[in-house]
């Protein structure tokens, strides 16, 4: 039988606010346990939540970017359950009336095709704290630094048909929230994580199969592998005549398998009801207008512009616009290189990325900036140095030895393009190697390389290779006559 997979993702993005969603406490990552939890975060008697307007603005930004409906009136609700790292015994979230509903994004698949994926809703909520089971022997530690951190939960329609599509969708959302500056996207620190709802059904069926939920997938690779495993597992169960059980499962990346979580965590009735401590969130037009005006260029808008402005191919555009920082770097490095944008693209994809990877740096930490690279590329473009020499200059720039021109000057790396001077060297080299000249003329054309090498050696590699080739051919062929 042929099987069809249906996947929906719930992505939790931690919003990049300075303070928590309902208190003034800081949200810095990595602080000593329980040093970033004020009385509101701790759920002390008598304290009250006050909504952080910055988190609201970020949610609106996201909604606008995905072409969603921004609800002018949304409601915070309490999700009630007991857990030691949930101080109030309820999580403030949005339930029936979320701030963002009905949007979509377009994802690009490996075969180059595109697919529009619906986003059911995105709602604001507070994060819980952390229970630390490993660090303390026979005890559980509670760290409430994360309690009250603002989250935007983004819920997709069940429209993803494979693990690859799910991963592509997750990447697209990751790219978008980083473009919007609403999430740092750091998956190791848990700033961007996702739960996946997965079911399979016989191809052609319209009814959904029983789903399982995979919790807390925090890397693109795990999302793909976990979903792949789970699809195979469900198909195996069904083909063996069994039934898929509605349950929450965890992905074990060491064993590359999914396992059910304890069943008792399933039987929750969260008793949602509107939080009486918070008035319904009303958004006025002026606020929406000001957020609209502050919207940055979106990834797909940038892709389109890169095609028009730089004439690059789609694959390069994908790479160069993956992050807005990377795109900005490219644009700075390509300034004024009209007709030679490909050179900038190649350097951004090649030398730059290789150096960043080698030193474990992100593009924002690059010791060579976009404008710095631009001055180097201009020297290639105007023939001052060769591409090969440029690599040497780049390494020196990377090591902090100065800007491109300073290094070229200091190391006397300017190419010899003076034809008269080069002709003199060529004449000398041919005269010094009559045997090879004879063989060349006898048809051993590949000896041209030998002569080029001799010329380069004689000029300390500063001769313009194209010019050398031309002059050597002319000289050797002329002598024959």
């Amino acid at each position, binding site marked *: 039988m042929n099987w069809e997979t249906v996947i929906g993702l719930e992505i939790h993005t931690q919003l990049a606010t300075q303070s928590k969603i309902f208190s003034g406490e800081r949200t810095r990552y990595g602080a000593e346990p329980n040093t970033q939890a004020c009385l509101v975060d701790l759920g002390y008697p008598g304290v009250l939540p006050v909504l952080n307007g910055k988190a609201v603005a970020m949610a609106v930004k996201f909604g606008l970017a995905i072409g969603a409906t921004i609800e002018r009136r949304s409601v915070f609700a309490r999700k009630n359950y007991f857990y030691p790292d949930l101080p109030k*015994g309820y999580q403030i979230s949005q339930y029936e009336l979320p701030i963002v509903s009905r949007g979509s994004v377009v994802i690009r698949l490996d075969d180059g095709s595109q697919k529009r994926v619906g986003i059911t809703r995105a709602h604001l909520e507070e994060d819980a704290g952390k229970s630390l089971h490993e660090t303390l022997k026979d005890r559980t530690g509670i760290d409430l630094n994360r309690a009250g951190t603002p989250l935007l939960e983004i819920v997709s329609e069940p429209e993803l048909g494979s693990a690859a599509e799910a991963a592509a969708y997750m990447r697209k959302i990751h790219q978008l929230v980083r473009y919007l500056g609403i999430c740092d996207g750091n998956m190791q620190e848990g700033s961007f994580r996702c739960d996946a709802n997965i079911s399979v059904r016989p191809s052609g069926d319209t009814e959904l199969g029983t789903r399982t939920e995979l919790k807390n997938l925090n890397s693109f690779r795990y999302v793909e592998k976990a979903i792949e495993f789970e699809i195979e597992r469900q198909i195996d169960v069904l083909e063996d005549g069994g039934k898929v059980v509605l349950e929450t499962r965890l992905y074990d990346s060491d064993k590359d398998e999914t396992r059910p979580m304890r069943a008792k965590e399933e039987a929750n009735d969260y008793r949602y009801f509107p939080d009486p401590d918070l008035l319904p969130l009303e958004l006025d037009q002026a606020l929406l207008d000001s957020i609209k005006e502050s919207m940055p260029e979106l990834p797909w808008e940038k892709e389109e512009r890169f095609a028009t402005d730089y004439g690059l191919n789609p694959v390069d555009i994908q790479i160069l616009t993956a992050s807005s920082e990377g795109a900005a770097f490219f644009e700075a490095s390509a300034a004024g290189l009209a007709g030679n944008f490909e050179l900038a693209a190649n350097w951004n994809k090649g030398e730059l990325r290789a150096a960043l990877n080698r030193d474990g740096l992100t593009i924002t930490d690059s010791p060579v900036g976009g404008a710095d690279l631009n001055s180097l590329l201009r020297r290639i473009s105007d023939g001052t140095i060769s591409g090969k020499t440029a690599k040497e200059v780049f390494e020196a720039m990377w090591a902090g030895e100065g800007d491109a021109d300073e290094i070229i000057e200091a190391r006397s790396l300017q190419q010899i393009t003076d034809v008269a001077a080069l002709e003199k060297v060529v004449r000398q080299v041919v005269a010094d190697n009559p045997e090879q000249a004879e063989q060349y003329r006898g048809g051993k054309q590949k000896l041209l390389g030998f002569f080029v090498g001799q010329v380069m050696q004689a000029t300390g590699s500063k001769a313009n290779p194209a010019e050398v080739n031309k002059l050597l051919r002319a000289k050797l062929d002329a002598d024959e006559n």
Partner: protein
Amino acid sequence: MDRLTVSQLSAGLRSGKFSSEELTRQSLARIEAANPSLNAFITVTGEEALTAARAADRKLASGNAGPLTGIPLAHKDIFCTAGTLTTCGSRMLANFVSPYDATVVSKLADAGVVLVGKTNMDEFAMGSSNETSYFGPVRNPWEVSRSPGGSSGGSAAAVAAGLVPAATGTDTGGSIRQPAAFTGITGFKPTYGRVSRYGMVAFASSLDQAGTLTITAEDAALLMEAMAGFDARDSTSADQAVPPYSKMLDESLAGKTIGVPREYFDDGLDPGCERAIRDALDVFSDLGAKITEVELPHLALSVPTYYIVAPAECSSNLSRYDGIRFGYRHPDARDIGELYTRTRQEGFGAEVKRRIMTGTYVLSAGYYDAYYLQAQKVRRLIRDELMRCFEDVDIVAGPTTPTPAFGLGEKIDDPVQMYLNDIYTIAVNLAGTPGISIPCGFSGTLPVGLQLIGPHFGEATLLNFAHRYQQQTDWHTKTPPPVSNDGAGE
């Protein structure tokens, strides 16, 4: 034993007739003498009070004093006070020392009041008799075998008995007005959102409101000027200017109208109470006000509606008492489930548990629509009905309670009878409007309260009506018999 009002004491302090320290010592001495029989205080802050009183005296001497500087005052033990116990009448918080001050507490402290102690109350403000307190019931100074009402019973008894000239309270379904009526004093519940809830231990967030227990409406006005106002830490607090209530008390009532709901005078109303209320309405007629009948056809639904909405909110509000971070914790739990269960079993009393269970039930999947959602609709209906009255009348008036103070032990085993005692006060909380109870006579030997209800943010109007009435009558000056030290055995 004299029982002076805040305004009289304020005048005396300014003229140097007595010092704040003398007043405070007198208050502390009275508490010491009366508390064994009244049980009105859970905590007395003698040392801190004397320090604050001396500071107030310095301020008075410097000429920078406000109207409340140096006035001894008690807070209901539901308001968080930094560095002292805030028990909320519960075993759960019997050891809880708040690290911060409630907004009400800091505002009154800024105004110069001297905090002498924290008053007893029904556990988490859930009760109408003060019998649900972990610290034992408060006794009514008029007759110590009777309840002072609840949940602000300690504050009411303390003011009625002259232990303090004024106290704060909170009112979720009548918890200021009913005890004021039972003890013959003035109890004022402002509009929802008028006074910040920050630092007030939550019972039912959409209904809770802080207010005052005083001898006169004038004193309520003075306290309100200090307590009311927008607080950025409470999202439900109203961003509206606070009018100078104490300057608006003397306006004439000529031509004003009072609506009296037909439904208030049914078989359930004690005849003695009815007589006192009708006499009070005559006084208002004499003052020039016009009395007309109004209708609140859904009044009877206010009690069942309240007992869905309030428990629903409390079931969630009280989830934070889990033994993890503060308050009572069962000492011998073997796992987290047992820790929660035993902590909450032992930390909460019967009435609190009853309401948590009721609230959990009405919010449960499958019952939410039938109970919680339906109750919200009825709440809207009751509010709209009351709002409609204010299109025709300036205020609504009637009894605060159907009977005068009932006996301790009389209703505690019959929750429904207990709940029905709040029939006249609850609708006001559901609607979010202000209400005040003022003494208007006696049924037998027990005080009767007249309730005046105003439109949203009609505080000034209510206080004006109440003050004019108190200028015309002397019911608010009646004091209970002196309390003997062994009073409990009457």
